[in-house]
């Protein structure tokens, strides 16, 4: 299995998904060898073994306490799924032109642009270096299937599959159209397209994404399968905690603050809500290339004092923010799946989700909106805050519903797809 992030070094849903999937596969007795561009040493990796091709002799085998079937290979590389400010700050000049296109020239100076959105050109080199190393590593390993997660691992997948003559599965967690709208990066699109076409099977996380794969990438429908993500139950019960009796309601946005996640719709809806209600705060938890712009926008809308930005949250902080929230809103413009709403429900927070998301295919007990319909988002936010029975019903049914979405089922679905591929036709 070729991936590129794994908890706790995650910046989005991909790492969470890879963790959940491999863990469930492990529990089902499937042997997984996980190749990563980055070293993982943490409590999360207890069920996997780490290896890097660079340091075959000194490969860091993390002891696995509970689980045995997943091996971990890490290739040292700065490769990361969603570029972070510090890593690629030096590339600002290159990306500035692109940014101005997206933001309609609202950014005037390079100094303001401290977060880079685009994958730098250097990252393509990284993608191919990763591919070369993974291929080299594959020569000495035994496996039946090559399973690559998202575009950065597709070249590696193609290479490993060719060397080993094993069938290739590419797993699409998101596409360039989700991340960039119509401003697609041609290079990434080409890599994605090649991966999908060279693959023997394409797995998508929703029918929403399956349609994009068929419609935008010209992949034949019969080789595209849908495997929904699951959610890792936190298993933490907060019954003994004192309920915070706060005067203010909290509406939460949690995710990368990028075009894909629709932060501006969240803010416009917030503005509408605040026209009718006063005791509400809107929390935007996450970072991303539009964060600066979002802060400005909140101020322009005159609701700056009602919108809090927390930056990127991890682990316990995420739990904490869920505990405080009365409602979670995901106004994504294009969301292949969206694990976060499931986590919110798991934490007893009712959710409003965009209809333009994969998760809306699997959730019944959620409020659904078109991301652009800020009136309707505001209407629903107000209803949830105003009517406790609504919040209660959403929460209890939603929490129950989430328990049925298990990684085990996703892993079993993958297993079945593998089996079908391995049967000689």
């Amino acid at each position, binding site marked *: 299995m070729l991936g590129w992030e794994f908890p706790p070094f995650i910046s989005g849903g991909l790492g969470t998904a890879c963790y959940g999937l491999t863990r469930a596969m492990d529990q089902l007795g499937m042997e997984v060898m996980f190749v990563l561009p980055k070293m993982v040493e943490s409590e999360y990796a207890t069920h996997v073994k780490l290896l890097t091709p660079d340091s075959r002799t000194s490969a860091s085998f993390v002891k696995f306490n509970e689980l045995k079937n997943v091996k971990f290979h890490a290739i040292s590389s700065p490769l990361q799924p969603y570029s972070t400010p510090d890593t690629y700050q030096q590339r600002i000049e290159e990306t500035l032109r692109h940014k101005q296109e997206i933001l309609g020239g609202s950014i005037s100076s390079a100094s303001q642009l401290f977060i880079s959105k685009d994958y730098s050109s250097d990252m393509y080199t990284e993608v191919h270096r990763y591919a070369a190393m993974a291929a080299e590593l594959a020569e000495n390993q035994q496996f039946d299937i090559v399973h690559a997660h998202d575009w950065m691992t597709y070249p590696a997948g193609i290479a490993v599959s060719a060397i080993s003559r094993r069938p290739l599965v590419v797993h699409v967690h998101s596409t360039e159209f989700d991340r960039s709208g119509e401003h697609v990066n041609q290079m990434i699109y080409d890599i994605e397209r090649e991966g999908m076409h060279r693959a023997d099977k394409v797995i998508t996380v929703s029918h929403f994404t399956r349609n994009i794969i068929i419609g935008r990438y010209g992949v034949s429908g019969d080789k595209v399968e849908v495997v929904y993500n699951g959610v890792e139950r936190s298993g933490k019960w907060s019954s003994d905690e004192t309920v915070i009796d706060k005067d203010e309601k909290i509406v939460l946005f949690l995710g990368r603050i990028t075009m894909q996640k629709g932060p501006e719709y969240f803010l416009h809806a917030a503005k*509408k809500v605040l026209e009718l209600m006063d005791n509400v705060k809107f929390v935007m938890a996450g970072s991303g290339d539009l964060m600066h712009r979002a802060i400005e926008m909140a101020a322009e809308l005159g609701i700056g004092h009602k919108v809090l930005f927390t930056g990127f949250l991890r682990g316990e902080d995420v739990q904490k923010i869920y505990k405080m929230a009365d409602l979670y809103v995901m106004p994504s413009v294009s969301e292949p799946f969206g694990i976060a709403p499931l986590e919110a429900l798991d934490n007893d927070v009712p959710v409003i989700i965009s209809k333009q998301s994969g998760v809306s295919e699997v959730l019944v*007990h959620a*409020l659904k909106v078109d991301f652009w319909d800020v*009136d309707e988002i505001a*209407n629903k936010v107000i209803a949830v805050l105003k*009517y406790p*029975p*609504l919040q209660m019903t959403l929460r209890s049914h939603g929490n129950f*519903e989430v328990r049925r979405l298990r990684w085990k089922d996703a892993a079993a679905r993958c297993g079945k797809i593998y089996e079908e591929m391995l049967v000689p036709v």
Partner: protein
Amino acid sequence: MPSVCFYFQVHQPLRLRHYTVFDKNDQYFDDNKNRSICRKVANKCYLPTNRLLLEMIRRFDGRFKIAYSVTGLLLEQLERYSPEVMSTFDALAETGCVEFLAETYYHSLSFLYSRNEFAEQINKHVEAIDYFFGQKPKIFRNTELIYNNDLAGLIESMGCFDAIITEGADHILGYRSPNFVYQPKGCNHLKLLLKNYSLSDDIAFRFSNRDWPQWPLTADKFARWVSNVNGNGNVVNLFMDYETFGEHQWEDTGIFDFMRHLPEEVLRHPDNDFKTPSEVIQSYGSADTVDVPHIISWADTERDLSAWLGNAMQSSAIHELYRIEKKIKNTKDEKIIGDWRKLQTSDHFYYMCTKYFADGDVHKYFNPYDSPYDSYINFMNVLDHLHKRCSGEMDEGAFCPAPGKGPPELLSGPASGIQNLPDLQPVE
């Protein structure tokens, strides 16, 4: 000698339009949607079925009889959108073989929340039936066949009804059969007619089900089942939604052919006949007393109220609705009172049901909303606005009709003249 007693429930709610918290006018109902649904159902069900049954009544020269309960809300809509249906009902009424029953004008759950409102709505419905069909209903049926001993006592005390209709639920009957006339516990003269749910549902629900071992159901087969009651019952009460014909069971299932042949097949056996509910209670004495301390209904397998009041949203919505009754009535504004009453229709609460939501069954089929949550939000937004109207705390820019200037509501009080029925005038 079993008598077959058909009673058809005929009802369509007034569906709300999409109403957000930002809306500030008092146009709550979706006229377009209500019109198109009314016309669609009229064409698929009401018109063809009325014509068919009229033909049957004429062919059998008074030996084929049926009963209807048509809600006031539907009468208003038919007048507006499908007057031709009204004339076929009128023709049916004139045959003398058709009985019209009484219920709450607004198909409401008011019995559970306001006895005053309940009685007012029944009176309003009785007057409407008298006005349209020249009959004073003698039989009462409550919304969704909701029933208990209290209801029977209340109806008896109103003094104008001979019998009440409800579900022949197993748990109230025990070993007894629904095929007799019964008496409610605590009543002196009021009779009870119980639905034979097994034979009723064979037509209403199972008719087109190919997995059912008895499929296809033919008229002669069904007539045989009816005749089997001979010796073990006086009456077979077949109570169902009228929309069974052509709407729930589509025409191509053969439901109309089934009904076309049923009278003939039932009457083939010399001991069988058709009776209206009033004729049934005149012909047969009560076999026993039935005690129903807890509320029953004809819904789902539970036969209880959970389809309307099963979750927190439903119960909060309905409590809020009846909580403001006094305020509403104190306004003496017919438009406000009328809107409030239209919100009482049980369908609004049915749409909020989460019970089978995930399974996509019958609840979803009749639901104009994408989810029960959307229906609750919409309903509460409307109710909130209505509440503001009667408190006079209108936001600026809102349409605020002067009290008393609104059009008088149909039959809203005993004094209101039948001739002033603006609600019933066709708008197009």
